[in-house]
């Protein structure tokens, strides 16, 4: 892993990143990125494919052992990752997946509670294969929640779900975040998803943030709101999508 300095961050910050560089062979993926995330802040990270957004998330998660790089990276010890696939162990029951690696019987109770919170009470002893895609992703959310993370990293967590399930998952995630208040970094390619969920939206392009936008719309956010449409077309143009002639859905 790239060297990290032990520099202390202010107590109000959950994440402090300074001039973070990540390279694959000769290609620079992250080119000196700076970012601070407040405690409890919900940040969405948008970017074209190949813009380095997953690399950034994996650097924060400490999953980039073999990647070359430099920079300061200060993240809470207690962080949790939700992947695009639910990544449940098929040979462990739902509740065992939630409490994976937690010690003893106190974990069991917490696991049941977390499952109830994501609306899966009664399915504790099912096998992951018996659940639908949306349900599996809810188990993955419960697995993160039960650890009460200070930072939740989500890498396109709803990318593999159908549109209707995705909307339901947005409501659930918003609700859970309001209750547990972790800092969140949500990597997504879905502009609407970012606007409906985030307090702040970043756009990554060629290894640098080219946009840092605070979203002050009231929640729950109405997709028909003209300000919503305005933010959407602004973000789309930053992502290099030609928005002239496109209408807000």
């Amino acid at each position: 892993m790239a060297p990290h300095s032990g520099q202390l961050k202010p107590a109000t910050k959950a994440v402090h990143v300074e001039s973070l560089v990540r390279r694959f062979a000769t290609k620079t993926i992250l080119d000196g990125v700076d970012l601070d995330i407040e405690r409890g802040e919900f940040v969405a990270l948008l970017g074209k494919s190949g813009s380095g957004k997953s690399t950034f998330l994996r650097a924060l998660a400490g999953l980039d052992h073999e990647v070359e790089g430099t920079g300061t990276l200060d993240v809470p010890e207690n962080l949790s990752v939700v992947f695009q696939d639910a990544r449940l162990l098929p040979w462990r029951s739902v509740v065992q997946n939630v409490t994976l690696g937690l010690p003893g019987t106190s974990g069991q109770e917490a696991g049941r509670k977390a499952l109830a919170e994501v609306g899966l009470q009664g399915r504790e002893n099912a096998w992951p294969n018996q659940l639908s895609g949306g349900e599996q992703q809810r188990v993955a959310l419960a697995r993160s929640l039960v650890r009460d993370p200070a930072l939740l990293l989500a890498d396109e967590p709803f990318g593999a779900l159908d549109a209707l399930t995705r909307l339901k998952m947005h409501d659930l995630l918003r609700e859970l975040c309001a209750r547990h208040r972790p800092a969140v970094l949500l990597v997504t390619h879905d502009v609407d998803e970012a606007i409906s969920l985030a307090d702040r939206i970043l756009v990554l392009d060629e290894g640098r943030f080219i946009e840092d936008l605070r979203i002050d719309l009231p929640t729950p956010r109405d997709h028909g709101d003209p300000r919503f449409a305005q933010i959407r077309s602004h973000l789309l143009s930053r992502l290099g999508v030609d928005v002239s002639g496109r209408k807000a859905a």
Partner: protein
Amino acid sequence: MATTWDVDGGKSVRTPHRDIAYAGSTATKPAGPRARRKLGPGPAIPFGLQIGPALLVLIWVAGSALGWIDPRILSAPWTVVEAFGRLIEQGRLQDNFVTSATRALLGLSIGLVIGTILAVTAGLSRIGEALIDGPVQIKRAIPTLALIPLLILWFGIGESMKVTTIVLAVIVPIYIHTHNALRSIDSRYVELAETLRMSQKDFIFQVVLPGALPGFLLGLRFAVTLCWVSLVVVEQINATSGLGYMIDLARTYGQTDVILVGLVVYVLLGLVSDGLVRLLERRVLSWRRTLAS
């Protein structure tokens, strides 16, 4: 849809019209082009798996009864049944069976333990792999039969030579399949274990070993079959007891019926032990069955 129309009386007029259109479209269906041919093998035949063996037995019975089959070449089924009864009466079948089964189970158990330990050591550490994998691959290239002369020189012709031969044969499939399963554990699960900050012990017992279990059980199925096969080999060379010895002795005296009794016992042993492993597989891998059902 119907409820909307019930509420809105004006639109309900359209309902019968739709029904007619629907009825009309179904009526034209049988008159359409001929049914599409299915590409699959079609539905299962009841007792399909039993038909082949039953046919063979039927040919055997008919051939013997009509005198088409020379009893010196292949004894008639009833002669075999008689020989079966006679061998049990004399106690020869039971004695030889117990001797053979003891050898097979002993060799299987020892081979199972050694093969699993080798596979886990090689699967979980690079040093272990460097030390173990090569020798096992070399052993795999040597036919068990070819090792027997050396084993006789080392262990004599007693039980230890026979059990060692079975152990050496069994280690290979257990090792290969378990090691392969350990190595092909999805790297995504390794990442997951890292982000969950699992301990090394939890990682091995929650992720690695259960994940490799299907491979181990596949290896076990091969091993079980192989332990009976190697038994035949060791018992037909320098043995004074066991099913293989019984068969070999019968060859000396030209007793086709006794040879057939021995073969039938081998068939039953092979099928029963394979069935037992499959039963074990079904119980242990119940999380997989849900995928198939």
